[in-house]
């Protein structure tokens, strides 16, 4: 009973935050609302006896990824999104995707309703850290390795994109050294071309 009440509180909070995320034109408000969604979801995970997933949800999504998003929004100082900036055909795409998502949700409901009821026994222990670790490194080892390689590729890609070519060094210009400065510039251009 208590868990059902909690579930409805947190589910309502998650949906309200999600609606507010889509509704707001200010990107920072949307980002904060998304953090609200993540926190509400992790509360639901706790009530479902999955504390590890809940903690990881907060730690990674709310604590790391969204902080970066907020950081970028603050750094770029994005303006509010104007309605006339929007592309009209995106409404159709969004509507189509929404219908697909709804169909998926209904299918999941259908499958859950038809499923035999003995799945609940596992729920007590499946969320514990040791079980998740054991499953990840025995049964699902290959997917974990693939994700690891994917992350490594992403890291290398990030380094390649962010790496700059050697910049010409700024030099202190003294009055009678103008000529030497010209040579220096040529030299640095040469270096950049290399």
């Amino acid at each position, binding site marked *: 009973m208590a868990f059902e009440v909690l579930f409805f509180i947190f589910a309502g909070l998650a949906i309200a935050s999600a609606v507010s995320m889509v509704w707001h034109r200010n990107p920072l408000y949307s980002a*904060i609302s998304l953090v609200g969604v993540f926190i509400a979801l992790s509360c639901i995970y706790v009530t479902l006896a999955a504390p590890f997933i809940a903690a990881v949800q907060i730690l990674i999504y709310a604590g790391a990824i969204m*902080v970066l998003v907020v950081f970028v929004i603050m750094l770029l100082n994005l303006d509010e999104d104007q309605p006339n900036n929007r592309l009209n055909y995106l409404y159709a795409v969004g509507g189509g995707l929404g219908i697909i998502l709804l169909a998926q949700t209904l299918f999941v409901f259908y499958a859950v309703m038809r499923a035999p009821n003995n799945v609940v026994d596992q729920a007590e222990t499946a969320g*514990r850290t040791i079980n998740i670790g054991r499953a990840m490194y025995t049964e699902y080892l290959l997917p974990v390795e693939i994700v690891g390689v994917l992350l490594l590729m992403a890291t290398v890609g990030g380094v390649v994109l962010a790496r700059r070519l050697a910049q010409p060094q700024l030099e202190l210009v003294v009055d009678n050294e103008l000529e030497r400065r010209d040579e220096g510039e040529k030299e640095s251009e040469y270096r950049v071309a290399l």
Partner: protein
Amino acid sequence: MESVFKTAFPFIVSAVAVLIAFQGVLMIVAYTVLAERKVLGWIQGRIGPNRVGPWGVLQPFADLLKFIFKEDIVPDKSTKFVYFLAPLVALTCALLPMVVYPFGPRIADPLGWLLPYVAGTSFADSVTWVAEQARNMPLTIASIDVGVLFVLGITSVGVYGIALAGWSSNSKYSLMGGLRSSAQMISYELAMGASVIGVVTLAGTLDLNGIIYAQMHSPWYMRWYIIPQFIGFVVFLISAFAETNRVPFDLPEAETELVAGFHTEYSALKFALFFMAEYVNMFTVSVMCTVLFLGGWYVPGLSHLFNIGSIPYALASHVVFIGKICLFLFFYIWVRGTLPRFRFDQLMNFGWKFLLPLAIANLLVTVVIVYFLNS
């Protein structure tokens, strides 16, 4: 009536426990502020506050009253809702980890001594029932399986308080402070997490009490994990300074560059919330340091003096726990009185190019050694 009481009992216990813990921690935090001013005074050859009460002991309360009665100024062009939200987020995220702190060992029968006094009276049954419930009472509010992750997660959400405060104030000093702070906390969280994983692999659990018990039951040469994990300890301590925005990493509020950083535009009680959040965060990382590397409430040899599970044993352990925390808090103040501030590029280079590789190397070595010890 009886059954209502019995149903509500766990909630009453949690509420009382939370109240006591919050009061205790906030008192410690208040006196950390006084201690900071006193110790800084001594380091700099001054006396420090000594007007309010004998030796200045009532200074924290005088400060609090002043914070409450000051005018609360809200900048005209600020984003009002976020401006109000930011200090709340900061303090809430600072206080939340308190529910998993291991304040002491379990007490086997905390209320057993009451029973002879109430025998024969009308509420003897209720007291017996409560004493029965209190058997094997942990001195932790909530024993979560993933205590370490919980603390790390909640403190990482605390970044929002600072970042949003900087953004919503509509002041360039605040914005710079907020940006610096988020960049710094994201960077040092990695090194901190990597140094914690070393301890977790040794202990084999993410539960804070479990880590303390793992240290109790390890061989004598690694009774406290500071010995096998010395590099991890150093990395953790340095990143803890950066995570709490303390000197020498206090760039988000560098007075000489940014007026007061992210809380430049905050006044009165809202500023007090940020101030308190900073000191509560200091307390949190001190607790984590104590639990992960100094054995928490455990002292070798204490079990020879008192019986394990008795009330004196729990009290002594608790006092030791608070003592270790105070040691770290003193260290914080000491460093503040000693070191100058880093430059921002130095801070970033130090975090990414020195601390993180060191933590990862430490983690690799630890994992290999643990693997061969276990096999």
